[in-house]
């Protein structure tokens, strides 16, 4: 059933089943897209869950304008967060979470390092590091390319979020012109970045740079000819 032919009633029935976790991934994607686009679908999702809450406990019978305001506030704060990406490899998909799976050998080395990078305490710092990388690299890989790199590579990836909505690590923000030294390993070194890294000891040193630079090395090589 293509999303175009889903009637409103059929969609709401999907939504009802999704509230109970009884929908397959493909139909979940469709329902989520309609939730995003249609206020009536959002209102119904809220109503179904309010009903469930009230059936179980009358003190959850809360007037919905508070709920609307709450979601608006969370949405606002979410818009300032980096988009979290932790794609589960195809073989592991389904209703079981991938757990310990790592995508492939090439990713395994970086794969081991990525999880600690995205813990909440360091996530903001890492996004800053990655963001600085993208701003100072002389040529950024196209978002589609970076997206392919992201999905081929690591199990978890924190992406910088800009208003122009590129979810890839390489934001499409134009880089300010700066003179940069290219060291022999092909890693772009920026004195300002090095200062930042030195101040944040846990990222300093080549092993830490090995995480993003492995990612960036392939990106820089790809663009070398341009």
């Amino acid at each position, binding site marked *: 059933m293509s999303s175009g032919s889903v009637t409103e009633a059929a969609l*709401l*029935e999907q939504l*009802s*089943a*999704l509230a*109970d*976790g*009884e*929908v*397959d991934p493909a139909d*979940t*994607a469709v329902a*989520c897209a309609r939730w995003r686009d249609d*206020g009536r679908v*959002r*209102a119904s*999702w*809220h*109503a*179904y*869950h*309010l*009903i*469930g*809450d*009230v*059936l*179980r406990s*009358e003190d*959850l*019978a*809360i*007037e919905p304008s508070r*709920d*609307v305001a*709450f*979601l608006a*506030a*969370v*949405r606002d*704060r*979410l818009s300032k*967060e980096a*988009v*979290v*990406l*932790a*794609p589960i490899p195809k073989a592991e*998909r389904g*209703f079981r*979470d*991938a*757990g*310990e799976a790592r995508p492939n050998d090439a990713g395994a080395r970086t794969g081991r390092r990525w*999880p600690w990078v995205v*813990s*909440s305490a360091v*996530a903001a710092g890492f996004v800053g590091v990655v963001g600085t990388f993208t701003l100072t690299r002389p040529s950024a890989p196209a978002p589609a390319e970076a997206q392919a790199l992201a999905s081929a590579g690591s199990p*978890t990836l924190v992406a910088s979020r800009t208003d122009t909505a590129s*979810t890839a690590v390489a934001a499409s923000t134009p880089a300010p012109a700066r003179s940069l030294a290219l060291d022999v390993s092909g890693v772009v070194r920026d004195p300002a970045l090095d200062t930042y890294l030195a101040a944040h000891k846990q990222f300093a040193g080549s092993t830490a740079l090995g995480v993003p630079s492995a990612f960036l090395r392939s990106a820089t090589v790809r663009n070398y000819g341009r």
Partner: protein
Amino acid sequence: MTSADADAALIERVKLGDVKAFEMLVVKYQRRIERLIGRMVRDVDLVPDIAQETFIRAYRAIPQFRGESAFYTWLYRIAVNTAKKALMELKRDPLITETARASRDDGDETSRVENELSDGETPDAVLASKQIAAAVNLAIEALSDELRQAITLREIEGLSYEEIAEMMDCPIGTVRSRIFRAREAIAQRLRPLLGTRLDERW
């Protein structure tokens, strides 16, 4: 399907970068999380803020959520930790406690009323709450036996569609349809109470 799996589909969407899927989870659990935090934090005006913080922290930590526990169990723990953290910060910040003390001592009648009644406790909010509860109860009683049984087994007993199908001796598709129709029937009674132009506000 246990509740650990009920949220699995949405969580997988979140992990694929679908932030809206996370918002759907927020709408699902927001009331319960606020109630939980409200039991721990006496100042009700702080509850929404701590609850929002809980969801943001959960969002950031989603890559670490592996489905070993139910999502709500995991979210519950984050809420408790966030509330504890907020309580500790309150104790440490002399400015906040001074302000709280000052407003309690204030003899002005208006500010006393403002301090005593939070958003959820104003007469209007309490009335709205009672009306919603009453409408849901009336609507449930007005349902046919099949629809009432289906939604009760799902929402109160927490059974999966498969389990309900077995109990009601009908196909899973019928279970799904009955639960949906029960929800819609109740929602019809609720919609007049839920405010005008709700679709646009969401």
